[in-house]
């Protein structure tokens, strides 16, 4: 007789159940910390959830925080697929967003149907170059991409910081002049009054499109196949006639270009200029997003939503608990979700097994 499968054993159920369980557990650990600083955890969590998920404004803020995490999460994920560890998303997004603003401020009078693609392209080129460099160095010299991407982060941050505070800034500010009005991406609140005041804008659809592109590229094209083979076993790939060097460079360049799209959210969709220090280290959070999303483009969306919620939620509860506690809470969630995957799955399956045995006996 074929063994009946318990519904809890189904991989799809588990894929959802395990992270949810981990999040719940991490929140209860977080509750202890909240109680330690003398606040009421239930009250804090109530505020956290009701202000992020309870109204359109909160959802808008959450989505606004999610968008750059999707771009950078994808950037890290596609590099992972090729076996590369891209720590450089922060630098790539800085260069990309700055280039978007730079091109935008010099192209007044260009119609929107050209200006928008032009600025998007500028961001991709900027980020792409910043991804290409470590990819090329890895392919040609074997220099480790982790070191080179970290170093290029410093270079990017310093360069952009200098440009945005000295060469291209509005005097006495740390931001550039505004981009041409035709390059603006509309905000949700231009159409839906419920989102009034929240900066969420249509760049989130560019992010979703990017997800579909990455999925299609990796899973459905010949190049994507090569990329995966290189990631799984580069020696075997070489032996099979796949150019490892080409795929390393290509994946880093695409990864950089994806990170470079962050400017669509902030520069084209929100402030309409580049500002020094706008990103708050999104590019580093992206590594956790990619890992949590299992390097799957759609997993990245879900992970980015969770992190987006934590980021905005952190701000929401900041009037009740200190900022350090918000950081602790975020860190606990990340650690639990990422490390508990195996533990929970095993525990769950063992639990089911012992239960079955006891029923059969």
């Amino acid at each position, binding site marked *: 007789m074929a063994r009946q499968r318990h519904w809890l054993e189904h991989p799809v159920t588990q894929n959802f159940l395990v992270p949810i369980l981990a999040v*719940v*557990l991490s929140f*209860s*650990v977080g*509750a*202890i910390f*909240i*109680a330690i600083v003398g606040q*009421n*955890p*239930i*009250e804090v969590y109530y505020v956290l959830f009701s*202000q992020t998920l309870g109204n359109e404004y909160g959802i808008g*803020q959450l989505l*606004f*925080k999610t968008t750059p995490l999707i771009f950078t999460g994808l950037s890290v994920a596609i590099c992972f697929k090729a076996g590369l560890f891209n720590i450089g998303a922060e630098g790539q997004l800085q260069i990309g967003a700055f280039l978007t603003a730079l091109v935008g401020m010099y192209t007044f009078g260009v119609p929107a149907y050209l200006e928008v693609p032009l600025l998007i392209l500028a961001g991709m080129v900027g980020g792409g170059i910043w991804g290409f460099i470590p990819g090329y160095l890895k392919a040609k010299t074997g220099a480790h991409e982790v070191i080179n991407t970290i170093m290029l982060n410093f270079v990017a941050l*310093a360069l952009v*910081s*200098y440009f945005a*505070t*000295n060469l291209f800034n509005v*005097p*006495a*500010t*740390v*931001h550039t002049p505004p981009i041409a009005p035709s390059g603006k991406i509309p905000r949700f609140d231009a159409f839906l009054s419920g989102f009034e*005041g*929240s*900066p969420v804008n249509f760049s989130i659809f560019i992010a979703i499109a990017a997800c579909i592109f990455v999925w299609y590229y990796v899973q459905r094209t010949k190049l994507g196949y090569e990329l995966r083979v290189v990631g799984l076993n580069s020696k075997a790939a070489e032996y099979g006639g796949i150019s490892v060097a080409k795929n390393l460079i290509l994946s880093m360049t695409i990864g950089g270009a994806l990170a470079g799209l962050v400017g669509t959210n*902030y520069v084209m969709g*929100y*402030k309409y200029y580049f*500002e*020094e*220090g*706008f*990103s*708050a*280290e999104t590019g580093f959070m992206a590594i956790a997003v990619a890992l949590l999303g299992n390097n799957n483009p759609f997993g990245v969306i879900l992970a980015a939503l969770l992190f987006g919620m934590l*980021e*905005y939620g*952190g*701000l*929401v509860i*900041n*009037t009740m608990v*200190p*900022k350090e506690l918000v950081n602790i809470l975020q860190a606990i969630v990340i650690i639990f979700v990422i490390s508990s995957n195996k*533990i929970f799955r*095993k*525990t*769950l399956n*063992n*639990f089911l097994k*012992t239960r079955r045995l006891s029923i059969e006996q």
Partner: protein
Amino acid sequence: MNKRLLHYSLVFLLTSLSLGLQSCGKPKPSGPPNSEVGLVFDVGGRGDKSFNDAAYDGLVMAKDSLGIKYQYIEPGGGADRESALRQLASKKSVGLIFGVGFMFTDDITRIAKDFPDKKFACIDYTYDSTKAIPSNLIPIEFREEEGSFLVGAIAGLMTKTDKVGFIGGMESPLIRKFQVGYQAGVKCVNPKAKVLVAYAGVTPDAFKNPAKGKELALSQYSQGADIIYHASGVTGLGVFEAAREMNKYAIGVDMDQWNEAPGHVLTSMVKKGNMAVYDIIKEWKAGKFKGGMPAIFGLRDDGVDFVYDKNNKPLIPKSVYDRVEQLKQDIIDGKIKVPAR
């Protein structure tokens, strides 16, 4: 074993939840409408021993002597400033919101327009006379040049080498105000004195680079300067380090920095962000909030000053102190106009 693990986790979860419930009193009643003060810190937030801490001090003063309640937010990145301001502004109980730092200029102007029935104030707001200020917003401006003028006068009177130094953080109009006022102060009392000027950099990082501060200070001391005034945030810690090493004097900024190098801090130019925050809360509470125009805190308003207390009294001769007090009075009376650029 694993079954037990699961049980433990569940027990743990329930315990912590009940712990949560236990500490659950009634939800705190939020105060009556427009009775509380909100404040959003600059990136960096509390603990900078500078204007963020000074602003916080103002809140505490207002709480102690006016009995107001306050809430604050420490945003993480540039995109958070507007949401933090908006979040406080949309609370019924909050009536007055502060932004700390010039970076808030655009954000707070926008939010002030979106919430016309709330009041706003912004420390170091970049005032642009061509743009209208919403009537519910007060840009807070300090006359840093006036305070710098006085410490410049002290340096000018006390230098033995006729050479003094200035070290700025990021080259910017704001820091140039300190430099220009200082130079004017030195020249006013000692026309033949020379002022060496150096900046730590051209990006905001120049405010967080003590190593660079030390390097610049050592170089100025070895060129003959015997007193250095810094306006460079954390970078200045390096200046004090150099002063201690070379056994020379340094002048602190923003707050009394005596403790950074006791015996080597001649004086400090204090910028009383706490007074500004306190004053505005007081006016607001009395129903006398006046927006649309910058509120200026200079020597006259006790917004800037120099330190002269039991610590540094032995370092500054009485004659120097009297002369500087006279200059201070002259500035307050308008007899001396201190340049700002």
